[in-house]
């Protein structure tokens, strides 16, 4: 069991709305923790659209999902958040009126307010068919540490951006890189596909993983690839399955918030039906709701600042202009 954490605001969901909310909380001087089921920041945008150009972010004529997440992350980090990645928010309880959220990893967060920016729900990687039980023995759904691929034979499975990004990252680091995809077309960004095809990586289309084999130490050492010419065995100590994600509201549905279909009903404060629990971004529902990132940013600011007045009723709803803040800190530094 991890040490319980106490913060002013817990943000559940590290997509665009959650990252901007984190910045807003830091701007007001609130201590903040960010929890997300995925092991990386960026939510749906990072996981599903890293290479797509997004055209409807205010002030940015065109930005890729990856660049947007990078910018939002830099902004969010000014709040010095506690990051709880790979943690799915599981239960909500109240202790003396204060929300306490516990993750599926057993992390407890006591937060004066909770902000749910969960988008379409918690993301779960699609399992590699027929290969369950190999997680932690060489099979993973993410690469969180590229050094782990060094001098290994790496098998990447999938045809999307993540699969090609990881194959490319493994080239030059791994002993060998094989990318297996069950179709002969790829969804990944064309430029990345071309780079991988031009590299030493072996790309096998119309190929599926038929079986994984472990050595005496219980860790994967080879994989059987089934292609059009039958089955062949390749060396592989690391298998990265990048087959996309499924999303569901999951445990949030049992928190007792008023829901509207698969969305959380909120009022104009972005308050849910539960005390000290707010919501923002794609997950909210109210009359006239438009589900765009641009709207999520506004809701995040509304939610954080309204939450702040609940934490400290004497504080102003309006956080002040960031431009004023810059001037005042400069002056403090000067004096």
């Amino acid at each position: 069991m991890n040490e319980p954490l106490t913060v002013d605001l817990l943000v559940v969901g590290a997509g665009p709305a959650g990252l901007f909310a984190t910045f807003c909380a830091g701007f007001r001087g609130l201590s903040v923790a960010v929890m997300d089921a995925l092991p990386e920041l960026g939510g749906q945008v990072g996981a599903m659209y890293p290479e797509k150009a997004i055209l409807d972010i205010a002030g940015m004529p065109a930005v890729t999902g990856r660049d947007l997440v990078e910018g939002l992350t830099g902004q969010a980090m000014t709040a010095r958040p506690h990051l709880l990645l790979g943690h799915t928010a599981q239960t909500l309880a109240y202790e003396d009126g204060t929300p306490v959220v516990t993750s599926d990893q057993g992390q407890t967060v006591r937060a004066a307010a909770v902000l749910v920016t969960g988008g379409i729900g918690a993301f779960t990687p699609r399992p590699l068919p027929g290969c369950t039980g190999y997680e932690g023995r060489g099979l993973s759904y993410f690469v969180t540490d590229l050094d782990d691929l060094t001098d290994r034979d790496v098998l990447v499975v999938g045809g999307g951006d993540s699969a090609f990004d990881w194959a490319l990252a493994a080239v030059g680091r791994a002993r060998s890189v094989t990318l297996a995809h069950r179709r002969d077309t790829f969804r990944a960004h064309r430029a990345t596909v071309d780079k991988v095809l031009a590299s030493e990586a072996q790309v096998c289309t119309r190929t599926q993983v038929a079986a994984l084999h472990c050595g005496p130490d219980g860790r994967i050492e080879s994989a059987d690839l089934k292609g059009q010419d039958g089955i062949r065995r390749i060396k592989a100590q690391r298998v990265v399955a990048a087959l996309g994600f499924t999303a569901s509201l999951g445990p949030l549905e049992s928190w007792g918030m008023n829901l509207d279909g698969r969305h959380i009903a909120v009022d104009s404060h972005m308050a849910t039906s539960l005390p000290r629990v707010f919501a923002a971004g794609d997950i909210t529902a109210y009359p006239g709701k438009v589900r765009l990132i641009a709207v999520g940013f506004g809701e995040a600011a509304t939610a954080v600042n309204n939450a702040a007045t609940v934490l400290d009723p004497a504080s102003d709803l309006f956080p002040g202009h960031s431009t004023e803040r810059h001037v005042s800190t400069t002056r403090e530094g000067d004096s």
Partner: protein
Amino acid sequence: MTHVITDACVDEKDASCMEECPVDCIYEGGSRMYIHPGECIDCGLCAEVCPNGAAVALRLLDPAAAAVHGPANDAFFTRVLPGRQAPLGSPGGASRLGPLDVDPS
């Protein structure tokens, strides 16, 4: 307004869309796929991968085409399918329901 599958899917059933859909809302019928209008989140990944151009955003179709393809897609859930007593409604996930070998008549 969500995505729908058109009759360009008939007898193709490539099923790439089912592999991509993050909310498991693409259902397999006897001759083609159908997207659940209430479960779809309009992310567009199905349209990106369909080799037959059968998965489309309803809002991008011209009104005449939308008036044909929208109801034809939705009928899988709203009509009583052959051999059933009631419409499917909202099954809450294609993998939960599994493929059916019928289409709305």
